C-alpha cells in the first residue's frame, strides 16, 4: 500500500469575486520530491502558491502537511510547521544588511545557533561576501538568492518557489537548480517549483503538473508530460 503523501492539496478552489482563478487543483507530493508546476501566463500558478501558503484564503479545498490540515492556519503557523516560500517579485528587506535579515529570520525560526545558521545559508548561496551589504545595494541575481536564503532559513520541510530563476544568468540558474536538487536529495525538502525555464523544470523535477486557466491539465514524469498531446497543444508547442 502506497504511503500517504507528505504534502497534499485537495480540490483547491480560489475565486476572485466572480472569477474562478483556481478550479479543483489536486497535488500530492512525497518528502524530498521536486514537483514542477507549469502553465501559460495567467494559468493561476502564483494564485495557487498564495492560497497554499495562506497569503490568500481558498474558497474551497484542503491543504495538508505531514497529515495535518493547515488550510485555515495563519501564515506564521504554516511557517512554524515547515512551509516556506519565495516570491515571484524579489521580496527582501532592502534597507537591512544581508546577514542581519537572515539572522532575524533564523532566530524567528528558533534555530539553535541563529548566527551560525544564517552564515551557513549565506555561504550555501554564495552570499557570504555580501553579509554586511545593505540588501537594496545588491545586484538583482544576488537579491534573488537572498530571497531564497530567507525562504530556506529554519530548514523548511516544504519549499514553494515562485519563478526563482527569473532574472538570473544561465550559470546562476543552473547553480540554483543544482542547489535545489541537493536540498531535495540530501535534506529531504519537498519542493514545488513554478518556473518558466522549461529546461530546468524538466531537468530537475521528479514529476510535473500542468495547469491551464486554473484547472489541472496533466500530470506525470517529465517524459510523460512532454509526450502528452494536450500539453503540447496548450502550452509547450511543437518545440517541446
Amino acid at each position: 500500500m502506497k504511503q500517504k503523501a507528505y504534502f497534499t492539496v485537495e480540490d483547491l478552489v480560489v475565486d476572485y469575486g466572480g472569477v474562478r482563478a483556481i478550479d479543483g487543483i489536486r497535488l500530492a507530493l512525497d518528502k524530498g520530491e521536486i514537483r514542477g508546476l507549469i502553465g501559460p501566463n495567467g494559468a493561476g500558478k502564483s494564485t495557487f502558491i498564495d492560497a497554499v501558503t495562506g497569503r490568500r484564503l481558498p474558497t474551497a479545498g484542503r491543504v495538508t502537511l505531514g497529515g495535518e490540515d493547515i488550510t485555515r492556519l495563519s501564515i506564521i503557523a504554516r511557517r512554524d510547521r515547515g512551509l516556506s516560500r519565495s516570491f515571484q517579485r524579489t521580496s527582501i528587506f532592502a534597507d537591512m544588511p544581508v546577514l542581519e535579515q537572515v539572522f532575524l529570520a533564523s532566530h524567528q525560526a528558533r534555530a539553535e545557533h541563529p548566527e551560525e545558521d544564517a552564515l551557513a545559508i549565506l555561504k550555501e548561496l554564495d552570499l557570504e561576501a555580501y553579509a554586511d551589504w545593505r540588501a537594496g545595494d545588491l545586484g538583482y541575481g544576488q537579491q534573488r538568492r537572498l530571497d531564497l536564503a530567507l525562504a530556506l532559513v529554519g530548514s523548511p520541510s516544504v519549499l514553494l518557489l515562485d519563478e526563482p530563476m527569473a532574472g538570473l544568468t544561465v550559470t546562476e540558474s543552473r547553480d540554483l537548480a543544482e542547489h535545489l536538487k541537493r536540498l531535495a536529495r540530501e535534506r529531504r525538502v519537498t519542493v514545488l517549483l513554478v518556473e518558466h525555464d522549461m529546461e530546468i523544470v524538466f531537468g530537475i523535477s521528479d514529476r510535473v503538473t500542468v495547469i491551464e486557466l486554473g484547472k489541472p491539465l496533466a500530470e506525470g514524469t517529465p517524459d510523460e508530460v512532454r509526450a502528452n498531446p494536450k500539453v503540447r497543444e496548450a502550452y509547450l508547442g511543437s518545440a517541446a
Partner: protein
Amino acid sequence: MLHFKYLLWLLAGILLPQIVGSATLMSLLTQAVIYALFALGVGILLRQCGLVSFGHAAFFGSAGYIVALLMRDLEFGAGTAILLTLFALAVVAFLLGLVVSRIPGIAFGMLTLAIGQTVYLSTLQSRELLGGADGLNIAWPGSIFGLDVRLFYDPAGMFVISWVVTLAVIYLLDRLFRTRFGSITSAIRDNEERARFIGLNITLPKALVYSLSAVVSGLAGILSAIYTGFISPETLHWSVSGMALIMTIVGGVRHLWGPVLGAILFFFVKEYVGELTDYWMAMLGAVVILIVVFAPNGVSGLIAPLLERKKRVTKTVVGKQVEAGS
C-alpha cells in the same frame, strides 16, 4: 565612544544658556527643544513603522490635561501624576495601536486624524471638567521630582531640563532600536509581507512602537504644560500634529536626531522669516516640497554623511557590531 558623544551633547546643552544672552532667543530654543521631543515621538513611528500620524497632538495635549486632572481632582503629587499619565498613555496607545496599526498607508493617517480631532472637539465641548475653549490653569506644586518649580518656569532652566530629557530619550531609543526589537520593526517597515513569511508577528511590534511614540509625545506635552502652566484645546488640534510632522520631514527620520534638528530649524524659520514676511508658512511649505523631492532623508540625511567618519564594518549581526579601522 557612543557614551562620550552623548556626554558632549549633554555638556553643550548645559553650557548653551550661559552663552545665549537674549531671553527671547532662550525662550525660542526652549520651545524648540520641547517640540523637538514631540517631533521625535512622531518621528519614531515613521522611522520604525513607516506610519504617518496626523493625530499625535492627541497624546501631546492630553498628557497635560491628564496630569492637571490627577493633581486637581485626585490630589496626586506632581511626580506621581506625571508617571501615571505616561503609563496611562502607554496603555491606551498600545490598545489603540493594536487596532489602527493594522491599517495601511493613507488610511492610517486619516484614522489618526479622525481620532485626534475627536479628542480635540470633545475637549473643546467639555467646559465643566476641562474648561472648554478657555483651557485649564495648572497649579504646579513648589517642586517637581525634587527640582524647584521656578527652574521649570525659567527659559534657561527649562531648556536644560528639556535638553537632558530629549537626549535621554534619544539615547534609550537608540539602544532599543539596536536590539532585535529594532530589527523586527525595521523589517516590518521594509517589507511587511516578507516579515510575515519569516514568521514575524506584525501587529504587536507596531502597536508597541505606536505606544512608545505616544509616550514620547506625551512627555513633550507635559514639559510644555509645566513651562506654560496652562493647557488648552489648541494643543490637541490637528495643525499641531501637522507641525510636528513637518519638523520630522524637514529633519528626516533616518537618524534619531533628525526630528530634533527639524524642530529647531522650524522654530528659527518661524521666528526670523516670520519677522520678514507674513507668508513664512508658504515659504516653509516650499522648503518641505523641496526636501521631500530632493532630500527624502531630510536635512539630517544631508548632514550625516559629512559628520560620520567612514567605518569599515567587518561583521554585523542584530544588536552587535564589530568595527575595525574606524
